[in-house]
């Protein structure tokens, strides 16, 4: 699998008078784990929605692996391998864990004319789904209806579904939000194992996670990128410390 990158050029999204995304130019290199941090309301989720095509940008461009994709529908970008997870868990409550993951894993095959054979009879899809469920530590609950899952497990399933859909680029929207410390640690391990295999854009509030995982970090404040750089550069960037980390960051 060849890795591809993702970039935006001067991306703008307005909601009425508010510029939720205000001239964002990002360069995410192939295979890189690029984290975006920023205070609440900085426009992080809006940025992801623009990248996936769920929101239409007002100005600027988005390139996936060099191809201009702004204006194309979600399906087209998913077809190129751009998959996301949601900050607000969006899993299919009435289905079991494995059914949820299988739905994602069926993506490439499609469901045309597939009205007779049960989904569980598609051996290759099931095998792939089981492997991903194991990888995401959900093996014990594979056959549980997901509305009965604990919160942390639902978050893990959210990531598992994005993984099952054969991504090349993963956009992870606060995958650890609301997790307990133990669950968070497991999630960090999971992300570490994904690093290098996919191009990853990670949005996360947990600074531990960001500083231990990211190759590079961008800081988003009021829709603008105020800094991009390595962990060290971001730690020491004066504007970042003022805007986000607070003055006690050097303690």
């Amino acid at each position: 699998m060849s890795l591809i990158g993702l970039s935006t050029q001067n991306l703008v999204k307005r909601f009425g008078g508010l510029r939720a995304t205000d001239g964002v130019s990002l360069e995410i290199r192939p295979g890189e784990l690029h984290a975006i941090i920023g205070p609440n309301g900085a426009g992080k989720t809006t940025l992801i929605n623009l990248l996936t095509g769920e929101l239409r940008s007002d100005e600027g461009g988005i390139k996936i692996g060099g191809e201009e994709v702004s204006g194309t529908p979600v399906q087209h970008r998913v077809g190129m391998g751009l998959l996301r997870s949601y900050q607000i868990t969006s899993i299919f409550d009435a289905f079991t864990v494995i059914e949820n993951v299988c739905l994602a894993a069926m993506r490439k095959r499609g469901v045309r004319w597939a009205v007779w054979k049960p989904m569980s009879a598609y051996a290759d899809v099931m095998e792939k789904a089981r492997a991903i469920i194991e990888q995401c530590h959900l093996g014990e609950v594979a056959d549980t209806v997901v509305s009965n899952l604990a919160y942390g497990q639902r978050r893990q399933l959210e990531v598992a579904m994005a993984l099952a859909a054969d991504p090349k680029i993963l956009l992870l929207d606060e995958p650890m939000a609301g997790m307990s410390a133990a669950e968070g640690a497991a999630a960090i391990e999971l992300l570490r194992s994904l690093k290098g295999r996919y191009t990853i854009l990670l949005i996360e509030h947990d600074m531990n996670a960001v500083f231990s995982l990211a190759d590079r970090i961008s800081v988003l404040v009021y829709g603008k990128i105020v800094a991009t750089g390595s962990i060290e550069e971001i730690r020491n960037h004066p504007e970042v410390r003022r805007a986000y980390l607070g003055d006690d960051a050097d303690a």
Partner: protein
Amino acid sequence: MNRVKLGAWLIPVLFLLLACVPFVAQAIGEPFYITFFARVLVYALAACALNLVLGFAGLVSFGHAMFIGLGCYAVGILTYYGFSDGWLQLGVAVAVCALVALVVGSVCLRTSGIGFIMITLAFAQMFYFLMVSMTTFGGDDGLNINEPSNFGLFELSGSSEVYWAAWVVLLAATVFMARLKKSPFGMVLRATHINPRRVNAFGYSVFRVQLAAYVISGVLTGVAGVLLANLTAFASPSYMSWPVSGDLIVMLVIGGLGTIVGPIIGAVAFLVMEEFFKGLTQHWMLIMGPVIVVIALLTRNGFGWLTRQREAQSAQAKAPVAGEVPAKAAAVPAGEAQ
């Protein structure tokens, strides 16, 4: 364990019971019951078709009587011009219903919620008034069908013939729905009901999946119309009027939305109740209405409790597994707020 068994024998038992109806009716010398239950089976078939869009995909189509009517008039109009070949009539009914469903669905599925309900209703009323105005085919008075559909090997010439044809088609449709529900297409279709945005985010086209379901559903409802035309030897605009669409929805709701046996149980319950209360009093609607309200209120998903309860049990049995994870995390959906 027993939940698997219960679900597995419910469908065969139901169809065996239905297969006994003609013989019992003959034995007690009441052939009227064959006609009555043939009507039940036809409506069960239409409800089964509606279940695909309303039960699985959560699309409230308030215009499904349109397809019953189209099926009826395919038989009526072709017979009027002297074509009583059943296969031809069936073929025309299927083609017309597929085409209409494709066009109507393409328009309706661009809306959702109330918009979808109203536009499906509007299309059905359009066809209703079209047939009312077609005086060549009887207009308001309907069209008598003098010859039954001739399928070569058999003719739908009497109530028992229609009964057995409906029984076979309903069985086939039920098996098809049971398979479809668990198939990838069915899973994606049901997923569009739960969270269409996420389905889109996986690159599936919610629109196309729902349109495909709407077309299949329309065609199957049209087949029910072909059977109804032969049962009553009549095609009338009233078959495609909105109360019929409403009845189908009520049948589904009391039978259990999205379940496999729901449409059958709902059609039987609805039409048997209607017949029973009609026998009691002229003002049967006054009793029937409240009874349906009570059924809908007391049972969360109509007779769907038959299946729902089994799911709840299985969920309970598995709950401890989920509980092993720190309960603390489960109680804190803090990250949900932005």
